């Protein structure tokens, strides 16, 4: 059982979701995040003053999967290509899960991940 954490550019989320659905991955959690990565600071203008934003909006996707789904999930996420040289597309982290419990039924382990 693995927990896949992906930090992605917000505008890619709808397309990543579509790809995940194609691979039959239906269960995940989405949260807002702010982060810095490869991007150069972004210039914004507010009331006549130009300023730099370094912490940019991201989306964090957390998907708990059984081992056989790790590769399809990573594939689905990386397939959504943004070939924009200046802008990073984020990172995927894969963590091991010690235990998973479905609250409704009390099931544990791989069946709970579903």
């Amino acid at each position: 059982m693995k927990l896949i954490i992906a930090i992605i550019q917000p505008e890619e989320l709808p397309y990543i979701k579509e790809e995940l659905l194609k691979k039959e991955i239906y269960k995940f959690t989405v949260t807002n995040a702010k982060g810095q990565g490869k991007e150069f600071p972004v210039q914004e203008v507010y009331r006549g003053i130009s300023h730099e934003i370094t912490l940019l909006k991201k989306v964090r996707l957390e998907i708990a999967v059984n081992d056989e789904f790790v590769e399809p999930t990573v594939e689905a996420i990386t397939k959504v290509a943004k070939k924009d040289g200046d802008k990073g597309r984020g990172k995927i982290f894969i963590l091991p899960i010690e235990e998973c419990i479905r609250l409704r039924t009390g099931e544990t382990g791989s069946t709970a991940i579903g």
Partner: protein
Amino acid sequence: MKNKNIFLVVFFLGGSSLLANGEPTVADAIFAINNTWMLVATFLVFIMHLGFATLESGLTQAKNTVNILFKNMSIIAIGILTYAVCGFSLMYPGEFNGFLGFAGLGVSTGAEGLTPAYNPGYTYWTDFIFQAMFAATAATIVSGAVAERIKLSSFLVFSTIYVALVYPIVGSWTWGGGWLADKNFHDFAGSTLVHSVGGWAALVGAYTLGPRLGKYSRNGKIKPILGHNMPLATIGVFLLWFGWYGFNGGSVLSADPGAVSFVFVTTTLAAAAGVIGAMGTSWIISKKPDLSMILNGSLAGLVGITAGADCISPMYSVVVGLIAGAIVVVAVIQLDKMKIDDPVGAISVHLACGIWGTLAVGIFSTDYQLGTQAIGVGAYALFCFVGANIIFQVIKLVLGLRVSEEEEILGLDIGEHDMESYAGFQIFTVE
């Protein structure tokens, strides 16, 4: 004491140019009262722009709020200024052929313009500024229907052309003493001249632009894109209702106690009935009472009575409002089925109920004919529909109409403005 004396002197000197003869007359007093009410009505109509701004903000996504507010702020400016440059003269050309006339660029008047000789109800300046507020209102109806995906520059160009030319030209046909006025077509405060004129442009804009991304899927499913702030939407509707007392009350064009008080009552009854009509209809159809539907319902009732608030009885005003409330709910659902994406229900409120309100005058008032009302509806439909189409198509060719897909997903606040409406807050901008 000294201040009070100065005040009295200024009051009498400024009060009337008839004063050269001495004491102010009763006619002067009535003129002053009329004019005062008309100016109050003017700023009541003005506050409707705040109503539109908050209502549209509330019913759309947070990531587009700056863009919505920007459009609303621009429209009042463009509407007023174009009306001063050419709109007023196009709409009230004086003697003309009934279809198209022009009284000259700009606004100006001689001394007579400040007296009852111009009009017993208001001065020239009051006339101009009151009517200018109406023009801006017609223009802002479009912004809701095209929200969340139209390019800002394209929208501003469209609105300028539409409010500078289309609105006043078709307005001259009725309020300017044109061919429809000659036929005894009646639109008391603008169900057709303001709301349908705006509504046709809204319809054309919405379908020319196409729906928002993800709204309609290929297998026929409709995905609701939720408004982000129901309190703002509600504030907007109450402000619009509040402003409508000036919109309809001021259309009496004087402070005539009987007429204005009657209009206040018919307007209010129709608004209330619109809420109930929408409540019943949406509750039955959707099984759950929907706030946004009853918000639209009150506006539907208001638009519905706007053509006939002066000539439809209070009892029939309730009927007009109830039916308008039902119409708006059905129209919202129907437009979605036709895949015309209207984020705030502008087409359903202003066009559908504007048409209903205009026809209702022929149905419920003995002074006017349903046939004539229908002719008016048809004439405005033709001109506005064709006109809006031409303008939108040309803009689409030259400037492009729609923002890019990436910008639409990220939000127009970032894409068009490089700003956030809720800086420091976490909002979900994507799904």
